[in-house]
């Protein structure tokens, strides 16, 4: 079962460049690994900067490129912090983030596992984020955080949309792949051997028996450049 929220572009064109980072599920406490979020975000931003054609005689362009670099560093860090915080560590699926560069835009996609019990809560947060005026949402979130003395305000996603002008979308996928109507067709179309197909079915059953209730959520950010 797949559910989409916001502006999620599932049928991507081929990108000019991409880079993907895949992180293993970790047994080390998140606090010890926290610095890796920032490290990874800055790496993606620096990597992207290298892909741009740099012209020293065009300071305007360079300025714009630096702004894009800082934007990617901020957004990737927010996405990674969220993914690491909310990931279901019992899931065998790794967390991954990928950056795709197109001629006129770029996209960041991050995937992590969440327990089925948390899905509804997250989806209602998304609905609220998408349906409330940004200014009202901002004040509401700070007010609530101040009242509860809470530390998380859900402001990260709001700043991505409102301050950085990016489009945001989500895809929720259950791991019950066989329920997808075209699952076998997909493999026939791709001329995979049936043996391989059965192997995958078996693997799916094993995975399912171990992790019956895991949902993978992919958050997509699209930014015009």
């Amino acid at each position, binding site marked *: 079962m797949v559910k989409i929220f916001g502006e999620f572009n599932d049928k991507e064109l081929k*990108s*000019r460049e991409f880079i*993907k*980072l895949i992180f*293993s599920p970790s*047994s*080390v406490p998140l606090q*010890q690994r926290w610095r890796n979020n920032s490290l990874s975000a800055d790496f993606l931003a620096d*990597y992207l900067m*290298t892909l741009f054609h740099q012209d020293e005689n065009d300071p305007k362009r360079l300025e714009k490129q630096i702004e894009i670099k800082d934007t990617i560093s901020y957004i990737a860090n927010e996405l990674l912090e969220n993914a690491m915080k909310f990931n279901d560590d019992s899931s065998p699926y790794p967390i991954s983030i990928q950056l795709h560069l197109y001629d006129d835009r770029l996209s960041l996609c991050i995937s992590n596992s969440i327990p089925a019990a948390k899905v509804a809560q997250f989806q209602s947060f998304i609905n609220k984020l998408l349906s409330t005026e940004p200014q009202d949402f901002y004040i509401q979130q700070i007010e609530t955080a101040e009242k509860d003395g809470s530390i998380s305000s859900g402001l990260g996603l709001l700043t991505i949309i409102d301050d950085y002008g990016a489009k945001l979308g989500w895809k929720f996928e259950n791991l019950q792949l066989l329920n997808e109507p075209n699952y076998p067709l997909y493999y026939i179309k791709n001329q995979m051997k049936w043996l391989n197909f059965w192997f995958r079915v078996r693997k799916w059953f094993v995975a399912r028996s171990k992790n019956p209730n895991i949902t993978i959520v992919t958050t997509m950010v699209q930014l015009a450049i």
Partner: protein
Amino acid sequence: MKQIFGEYAEETVKSKEFLKIGFTPNSTQLQQRWRNNGLSADFLADYLTTFFPIDDNEPSTLQRATELKGAVSYIANELLENSMKFHNPNDDYPITLEVKLYNEHLVLCVTNSISPANLLKFQSIIHDLEHIEPQELYVRQIKQASKNDGNSSGLGLLTIIDDYEAKIGWKFETIQTQKPTEQTLVTTMVQLSI
């Protein structure tokens, strides 16, 4: 087709931690991509140090982390530079760099596609590494490099084995790609005790 050279070990025990980076090899000018090799290698090394916490009362922990960071950064960069040299320029099969952490060692793997012409060249470098004494090979590589104006393919791999005391191995395998043609992939694996 699948061929193994040197000390290549398929994973039998699951790693404690891993990080994998995949990226498109083409389109950008070589010089800029070169910068990204260094960035990626340094990032991987820095990322890894998180799993080797430093205890201020134990100076050896700092030394170990610093040494390991230096070794991983050097080796990953050499592997990436090689993958850029040998990858098949006619396809856009992604290059991947992976680090896996185990209790007593870590593994670095780089996978890239390779063209038939480069395949022979690469396998002859491997042949030399396996059959010639390191010191003799070192001298030979330097001489050759000074003759061909700095093309020092093979020296990087030699330093990994000799200076960093790592085990190295290769896997060549042919896979079906979406195009009608087949594609040969090479994975270079470096094992380093920690």
